[in-house]
């Protein structure tokens, strides 16, 4: 769907700004300068306001990123379910440390709790969420997605 078409589904009122950004990101993977300009125009807002808003949220990406992103929850409850060992295993499999952005294809990061703590450890691969991940099973999950 083009950005113009997405915009037509929303009244240009401030309370719709985040919803527009989320929808645009779904279609476009990220919200760059061009998208910000069109959206700012539609909402009659300064470009700086739209960009600073978009860049505020963890869930909105403002830069193109071709790397595959793998995230692991760093929360206490996931930790008590052995997320540390799972993280070690992913690091070994990918050959990159968490938070160390040097791999050309993958980025491995910690993320904040998703509220799925009763099913931890939680791993997110390219937006797909995996529950109760074990060090023994994580290789197979990664192979399927990368």
């Amino acid at each position, binding site marked *: 769907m083009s950005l113009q078409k997405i915009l037509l589904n929303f009244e240009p009122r*401030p*309370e*719709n*700004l*985040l*919803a527009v*950004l*989320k929808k645009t990101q779904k279609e476009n993977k990220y919200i760059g300068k061009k998208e910000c300009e069109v959206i700012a125009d539609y*909402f009659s*807002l300064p470009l700086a*306001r739209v960009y*600073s*808003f978009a860049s*505020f*949220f*963890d*869930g*909105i990406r403002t830069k193109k990123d071709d790397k595959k992103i793998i995230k692991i929850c*760093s*929360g*206490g*409850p996931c*930790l*008590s379910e052995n997320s*540390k060992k799972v993280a070690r295993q992913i690091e070994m499999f990918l050959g990159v440390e968490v938070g160390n952005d040097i791999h050309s294809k993958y980025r491995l990061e*910690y*993320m*904040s*709790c*998703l*509220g*799925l*703590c*009763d099913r931890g450890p939680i791993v997110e691969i390219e937006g797909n969420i995996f529950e109760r991940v074990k060090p023994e099973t994580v290789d197979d999950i990664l192979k399927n997605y990368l």
Partner: protein
Amino acid sequence: MDILTKNWDKIDPLRIDSYTRTGGYGALRKAIREMDPEKVVAEIKMSGLRGRGGAGFPTGEKWGMAAKTPAKEKYFICNLDESEPGVHKDRAIAEKNPHQIIEGILIGAAAVGAKKAFIYINGNYQKQKEILEIALEQAREKELVGKSVMGSAFKVEIVIFEGAGAYICGEETALLSSIEGKRGEPRLKPPYPPVAGLFGKPTIVNNAETLANIPFIIKQGAKTFSQIGSSASPGTKLFVLEGAVRNRGIHEAPLGITAQELIYNSLYGGGMASGKEFWFAQIGGASGRLAPAGKLDQSLSYGPGEFPLGCGSILVVDKSADIKDLLFSWADFFHRESCGKCLPCREGTYRLWEIAKRIKNNDVSKRDKENIEEILWTLSNTTFCPLGNFAAVAWKDAMRMFSDKIFN
């Protein structure tokens, strides 16, 4: 005594009839047909209900403030942003009994005179959002939401607003900013939202669990409610038990209960998981204090106490855990979630996170040790909003209780 979980797993969340059959929306009918708005506010005041979002503010007083403030437009917001690590009680209510929340919103909106309500939901709660959407659609069909609620002059629209992964947007003023299309940074209070909130209009922000209590109070009366739980903060609470405890997950229990009972009583936690030995418990999510075994006998309620209950989650940590991992876990969360508005928190949480990494890798320096104290003091005393204070709570306790294990 179950108020919130009573019909969980008995009713079908996707069918409104299933809720009305258990007496659902009876409280709304009573509030609209038999009571005037002042009476509803008075009843909630009398019940002693306190907010379940963390701060424990008396709900009736909050409603009274918004009701008294004259304005053509007012807003009512259900806070379902829930993103404290270890907390997923609001998710469970939305999933198991969505109409309980919607009925609470409707009664509240009618009481304060709000014509528009939002459910601000955590962006990760997609399934719960869909359930709420279906529930709202069915409520509209039954004329419980819309132009004339139950044939009365009261009209209200409820819309779902989806967050995008920012813990700080659970803080009520940051939440309001983000709906207004502004960065989710907290605002200076006063003015408080009930006086000047969303778009400058009187606005109520209530936690989803707080609102789920409303139908019971209206139907059974404030008196019945006020006799449950502790006198300082009546009612029950959804506690979330996590970590090395046998029955993990959500347990409803009267306020005033001790952590000891929650963890060890077979009705709730059922004791330590097999093979695990108790070390300490963290009470109130990642921003909660650490309680050693000798302190578990204190009662948990909203009001003065050594261990603030917060949103009601308890992480049970056993002796096999490494405190260094936990220090990193807390620091990692708060450095990512600091909104960046004020320097002490933006820099403090970042530096603490760097030191946490060094602690984890066993290369912490003498300077680090000195700086920790200073950073924790700064976070506790100089930040703009409570998030900065939260970031220091568990660290301060850990430094006091386990420094031999941290700097070995």
